[in-house]
């Protein structure tokens, strides 16, 4: 997997390149907007991480220019501007996700993996299957090892999101954004309570446990034991 990182701050770029390299990505770097746009158009990447404020060319302008050339490479925008407007503008410009500085690397990695997964053409599937856990998206029912599991509507959406990103780490803010449709900072462990309730329903009485807590990052659903 090749990732292009367009970031003008050398230290941040080093940190991103090192972290992504350790996570198994091949990383190319560009320190300004023009170089970044040149690389983005001349090379083939699986995803790009673009800082919003760059010398030479605005990060959003790069995304707009790529989209105008029908380049659909997933883009994660990094920005110190975290207001509601800025987010909306970033996503309207064609960014696939928007992460506000400062961020945890685990958050960035989780979001990047989610973007890469989103490209996989499984959107048309009507059932999701992870191990012996099955989700019927049309009938809105869940089964594990053939036994029906009773889920509330929100729990269903939560499980659907976790299953679509099976094997990946999803963070609490990602869950809030994608499952609840809100972007905010809860002061308490609201998400944890929802996840632990879901865990009660899908893992209790079954083996192995599938819904794992990843310390310092978020959650991961997988068929294998952690």
């Amino acid at each position, binding site marked *: 997997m090749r990732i292009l990182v367009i970031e003008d701050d050398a230290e941040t770029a080093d940190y991103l390149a090192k972290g992504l390299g350790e996570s198994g990505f091949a990383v190319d770097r560009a320190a300004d907007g023009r170089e970044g746009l040149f690389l983005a158009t001349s090379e083939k990447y699986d995803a790009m991480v673009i800082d919003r404020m760059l010398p030479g060319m605005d990060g959003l302008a790069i995304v707009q220019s790529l989209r105008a050339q029908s380049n659909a490479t997933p883009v994660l925008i990094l920005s110190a501007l*975290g*207001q*509601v*407007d800025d987010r*909306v503008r970033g996503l309207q410009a064609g960014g696939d996700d928007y992460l506000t500085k*400062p961020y945890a690397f685990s958050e960035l990695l989780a979001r990047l993996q989610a973007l890469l997964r989103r490209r996989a053409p499984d959107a048309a599937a009507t059932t999701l299957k992870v191990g012996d856990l099955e989700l019927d998206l049309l009938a809105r029912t869940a089964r594990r090892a053939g036994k029906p599991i009773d889920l509330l509507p*929100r729990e269903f959406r939560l499980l659907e999101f976790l299953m679509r990103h099976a094997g990946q780490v999803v963070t609490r803010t990602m869950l809030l954004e994608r499952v*609840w*449709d*809100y*972007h*905010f*900072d*809860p*002061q*308490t*462990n*609201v998400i944890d*309570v*929802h996840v632990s*309730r879901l865990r009660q329903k899908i893992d209790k009485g079954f083996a192995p446990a599938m819904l794992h807590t990843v310390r*310092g990052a978020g959650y991961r659903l997988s068929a294998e034991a952690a």
Partner: protein
Amino acid sequence: MSAPPAAAARMGPGRLVRTTAFRLAAVYGALFAVAVVALFGFLYWRTLTLIDAETDAAIASEIAGLAEQYRQHGMVGLVRTVTQRAAAQSDSALGGSNVYLLTRADFTPLAGNLKRWPAEARRTPAGIVFDLRGEEDSGVGMARARIFVLDGNFRLLVGRDLRQREKLRALVAEALGWGLAATVALGLLAGALVGRKLLKRVEAINRTGQRIVRGELKERVALTGAGDEFDRLAENLNAMLDQIERLMTGMREVTDNIAHDLRGPLTRMKARLELALLGHADPTQFRAAIEGAIAETDRLLATFNALLSIAEAESGAVHQTMQPVELGPLAADVAELYAPALEEKGLTLAIDIKPCPPVSGVRQLLFQAIANLLENAMKYTPQGGRVRIAVGAEGAGAALTVADDGPGIPAALRGRVLERYVRLDQARSTPGSGLGLSLVAAVAKLHGARLELGDNNPGLKVTLGFPPAPAAPQPKAKAAEPAPAS
């Protein structure tokens, strides 16, 4: 703007000339002068025309009389009459007198009060009225005259002295000159006076501005009490200065608070990392130190994000993203998100949502505000307590209430808890940044909503009363009914 402020503040004449009021006065003065010149000129011209017409009429009647004499008595009668009439104009120096001269063909005078035929008149054909310029020895100053050639080439000149007309013309011209001078002088003087008065008021405002620039932030523009435009300008400037001062004070408080709130955790983190370095190279200890530092960083970031959210709401910069928001579904969403957490804490959550009109707002911020209220209730209500969230219409707007039966807040302290970082003594031991309610207050202010902390007997009841959404431009509002086809 290279002039030093002190010099700029002085009112030199050059400065006066550059004022708008003075320039206006100068322009009006010039226009007025042109009008005066036009009026006087017209009067002058009309007066001269009238005098000329009268002179011509007098000459004509004189000629008629002489012609009658000539017809009845011939040349002898004419000579006699001319002599008589010329003698009657005894004092030719007096204005308005008539001029006569009868000569033979060779211009030798026969009768009349002119000593000789004027050189100018020799070239003039008969029968034409013409102006005769004075010749010293001819005995006439300025005159208007007519010449006749009689039988035997006798010549008759009849005219009227124009010195009277000249005097009048000079008088009128003089009056016009003085009038014009007076008009311009008065205009300039009035302009200078008005300009000076206005300049004084403006200078007072400028001086205040300069003092504020120099750092005397409490300085305000003085009002004259006249209630005029300058007073209104001063009032607006003062209101603006008050607002700026409030914002600056707010900024200073925020900075102080951030410094206070971030310095502690940062110092702890530094100490922890330094201690880890000092100790023996034990990987488990390093790991513990790093994890502790990360946890501390997370707390710092949470505080930082809360401060930024408040700043965002307070700055009012999100006004353009205001959209119609249905409070009911929004509150239901928050309740749904928090219900398990409340249940976990042994609290029951009651939801009471009645239909109400949509409010104009920022969905994300409203969600955060309601979430903060629920988190607050969750934090301070003891186990077994009840939390209630209600939405309903209030007047033309909508109201949202979050109530609990916890310890509540004493009435005297309710204003205080909305300030940043204020945590009541009994709350010191519970975790939290102390920013939750200040964010709610900031969001309420942004939405023009009333934030009310009341008594739930027992417990706290927080009400947010929203004004009705402005009805005008809401293209996305579902409630807007399509206009009848036109």
